[in-house]
């Protein structure tokens, strides 16, 4: 029996209805953000679509197709696939971990022939889906029970440890924070978070021992960048110089002296926001923030009108993930948080993160299209 036939939903829409139900304004905003990324990658290459802008564009098209496909697929299918996805992502993380242990050093990528996959990226989505499904299926009563927390904590903890071993501090933090935010939204008792906070402190100390020297260095550098201006503090100082010298109106497109002259490190990936702020000024930076705000605010507003807890939590999880990317990246380039390798969604060069975020938005839009679909607690196909 085909899957769609098993979904006994009389309110089922056909594809055309679904496509027209897709919020094209949001897609347009996403295209705008990616367009800024395209323009900035063109700029940092000194006014050339090679080597970054062209690839960025192609990857965006691929990701955008994925977004549309994901959005039109029934949300119940995604709920059904949540645990299998999670399991797959976890297996891939283990494989990566084993390969790393086999002496290949820092290993984050998995070559599956046609492309390189970063399992930790996949896990961000899979974890949100799995947690959303878990809390969808939990009764309100059980949600408040302490023992119901065991499974989610394992679900968060396993990938967090695996990713930290890669070692990838930035993604680890994203996974943990995203997961906790989701638990919070699902209605876990407030006092548990306070207790957790206190419990985290020795854990953080333990994690410190876990960190690689370069990661410790990053944190120490963040605390006092001027101490070592040509060494580890260099990135933050140069980023602040470039950003601050941009002023309100910026130095003009492709006119950013610091980014064009390579004073700025990693300018096409993690520090792309600095280029925007230098060349397009405060106005450019705020415009990008405004676009992000529209995207996230829309998703949050939609989430309260979604009928299923799975859909709501799916949206919220994606929004939190999205927000953490944006916040950590921008705070990092402005010297507010330590330098951790977190890209700026849709703007930084790099395929995996962009794919993750477009897929994530695919789920948000899917939940939007299918917001009227109510799913029984027992599961979509129970």
């Amino acid at each position, binding site marked *: 029996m085909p899957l769609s036939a098993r979904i006994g939903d009389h309110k089922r829409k056909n594809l055309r209805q679904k496509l027209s139900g897709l919020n094209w304004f949001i897609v347009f905003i996403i295209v705008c953000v990616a367009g800024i990324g395209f323009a900035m990658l063109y700029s940092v290459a000194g006014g050339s679509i090679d080597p970054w802008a062209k690839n960025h564009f192609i990857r965006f098209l691929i990701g955008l197709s994925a977004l549309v496909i994901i959005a039109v697929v029934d949300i119940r299918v995604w709920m059904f696939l949540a645990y299998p996805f999670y399991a797959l992502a976890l297996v891939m993380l283990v494989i990566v971990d084993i390969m790393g242990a086999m002496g290949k050093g820092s290993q984050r990528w998995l070559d599956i022939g046609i492309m390189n996959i970063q399992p930790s990226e996949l896990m961000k989505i899979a974890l949100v889906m799995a947690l959303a499904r878990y809390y969808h299926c939990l*009764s*309100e*009563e059980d*949600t408040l029970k302490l023992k119901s927390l065991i499974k989610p904590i394992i679900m968060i903890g396993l990938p967090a440890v695996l990713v930290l071993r890669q070692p990838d501090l930035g993604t680890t933090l994203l996974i943990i924070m995203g997961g906790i*935010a989701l638990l*919070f*939204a*699902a*209605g876990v008792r407030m006092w548990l978070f306070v207790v957790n906070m206190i419990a985290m402190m020795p854990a953080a100390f333990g994690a410190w021992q876990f960190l690689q020297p370069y990661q410790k260095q990053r944190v120490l550098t963040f605390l006092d960048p001027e101490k070592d201006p040509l060494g580890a503090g260099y990135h933050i100082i*140069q980023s*602040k*110089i*470039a*950003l*601050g*010298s*941009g*002023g*309100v109106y910026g130095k003009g497109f492709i006119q950013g*002296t*610091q980014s064009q*002259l*390579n*004073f700025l490190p990693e300018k096409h990936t993690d520090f792309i926001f600095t280029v925007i*702020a230098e060349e397009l*000024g*405060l106005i450019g*930076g*705020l415009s990008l*923030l405004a676009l992000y*705000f529209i995207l*996230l*605010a829309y998703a*949050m507003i939609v*989430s*309260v009108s979604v009928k299923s*807890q799975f859909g*709501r*939590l799916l949206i*919220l999880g994606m929004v*939190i993930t999205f*927000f953490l990317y944006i*916040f950590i990246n*921008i*705070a990092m380039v*402005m010297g*507010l948080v330590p330098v951790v390798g977190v890209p700026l969604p849709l703007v930084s060069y790099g395929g995996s993160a962009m794919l993750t975020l477009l897929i994530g938005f695919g789920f948000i839009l899917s939940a939007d299209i299918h917001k009227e679909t*109510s799913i*029984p*607690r027992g599961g979509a196909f129970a």
Partner: protein
Amino acid sequence: MQPPDKNKLKMYTRRATLLSGGMLLLSSALVGRMYYLQVTSRSQYELLAERNRISMRLLSPTRGDILDRFGREIATSTTDYRVNVIPEETEGLQETLKALAEYLPISDGDNERIVKAAAKQRSFLPISVANNLDWKTFSKVNVNMPGLPGIQPDVGTSRFYPERELAAHLIGYVGAVNEEEAAADPDPLLELPEFKIGKNGIEKILDNKLRGSAGNSKVEVNVLGRVIRELSRQDSIPGEDVRLTIDLEIQKFAANRVRYESAAIVVMDVHSGELLGVASTPSFDPNDFNGGISQRKWDSLRFDIRKPLINKAVSGQYSPGSTFKMIVALAGLEAGLIKAEDTKFCGARYTLGNRIFHCWNKNGHGNINVTQAIAQSCDVYFYRLARDLGIEKIHNMAARFGLGERFNIGIMSEARGINPSEEWKFGYTGERWQGGDTINVGIGQGYVSMTPLQLAVMGARMVNGGKRVLPKIFLDERVEYEEPESMGINPEHLKIVVQGMDDVYNHQRGTAFAHRARGKDYKIGGKTGTTQVVRISMAQRQEGLRDIEDIEWIQRDHALFIGYGPVEAPKYSVAVLVEHGGGGSSVASPIARDVLEFLLDRDLAAEEASRPGQEV
């Protein structure tokens, strides 16, 4: 239908609102931070950004040339063909150097230096491989560039002295800036690694004029220091050329004439005071100092007993010997103590107290007048005259002729000489002036000492009609020629003395008669001088030890001569000094004659050429 789900939504909405609030709060922190960096602290970061990217490069000016009176180059800047290597562009530094070695020699030392430099500096900065290549080698490298990746032929300028050692003492040389010089001079040019400044001679004295001033190029550099583009440029101002009064041909002739001696020749225009030639031998090649002289070469110059580093023409101080006799004669004439026809008796010796002073002529000159005394260089005549005059009158007359005076003409280490007087001796030695001191000064020995330049000036003032001509080394066309003031000496008296100088060459009893100019349309005159370096005892004299071959070179007499010509209308004054040369008449007078003949023959030829052509 599912009430628990309703509560779930309520709970979700509350929690989602809280989370949204949290996100908004964090976002506003971002906006605040952006505002702080881009608006509040903007100017501070702008400054830092400029400092990051702007680099000022100094442009060094071309050094001015030093030219002779006709514009011929004595010191100039030449293109220097160099080969550099840029490690970044090679396909392996060693391979490239090996390939390059086929076209030019690269020593192991060079190789080591290059490898060391490559390890130390950024790989896109050029490292010098070889300098001062000849055109053939340079073009060979250029032609083979395709096989020499990373090799960069480069053309710069370096100081070049085409006449080499010919005028080295006058011109001096340039060299790298040392710490003291850099500290004393705020000119930013001195901080350039390849910059050279004048270290000696005119190069040093007129360094500021020759140096020019720095230009600058404001360039934008990237994080590696690589130049991206030039933002603005102010060209350097080349140094001014310096014109000398020197006539390179005369300089060349004079220097070559005494090439193998330890000697000095000064040639001066008796009217304008322009120095046409100032030679000092042995000399050195100032080109050797450009890139830093080797220790061996430096030591060989430093420890040479003939002192090649000293400019004997202006720094060497010698007893003038008999060339001083004109001063004594003039003092006598001016004081009214002698007249032209008055004679004194020379019996080959003169006694003062218990001291005996000898005449060079063991037979004595008999009764002799002042003109004859100069021509034959009679010592006893001048012993007597000096005794009669006293040191003060001699001192005053010598002073009028420039003795004891530093002319400050712009040559390094110009010496003052000694024009002795009673006060001078007391101040210098603490002893009283003795009668015997005056006798010695009477024949230009004893305390009196002069530089060859002073000798030339003295001769010039003697033959130009007693005018106080001053020596000049820089030719400045803007300054109009001004006839020097008269020293107020009776022309008749001058004539008597100059007649004596005429007779030195041209009277058959003159001391340089054997070396007179022969077969010329003009006559030359002058005065010999031989000064004892080591006092030779009477006993040695009796034993016939005067033979110079028997005396070590260092103990031989200095030979001097003051020459002038033409006698008919004096134009040039020539001072010749040959250290330890022997006799003034046998060694110095032929040299002076040759120089004067060269000068006068040349003038005659030029006159001939400028005369309207005569049809045959």
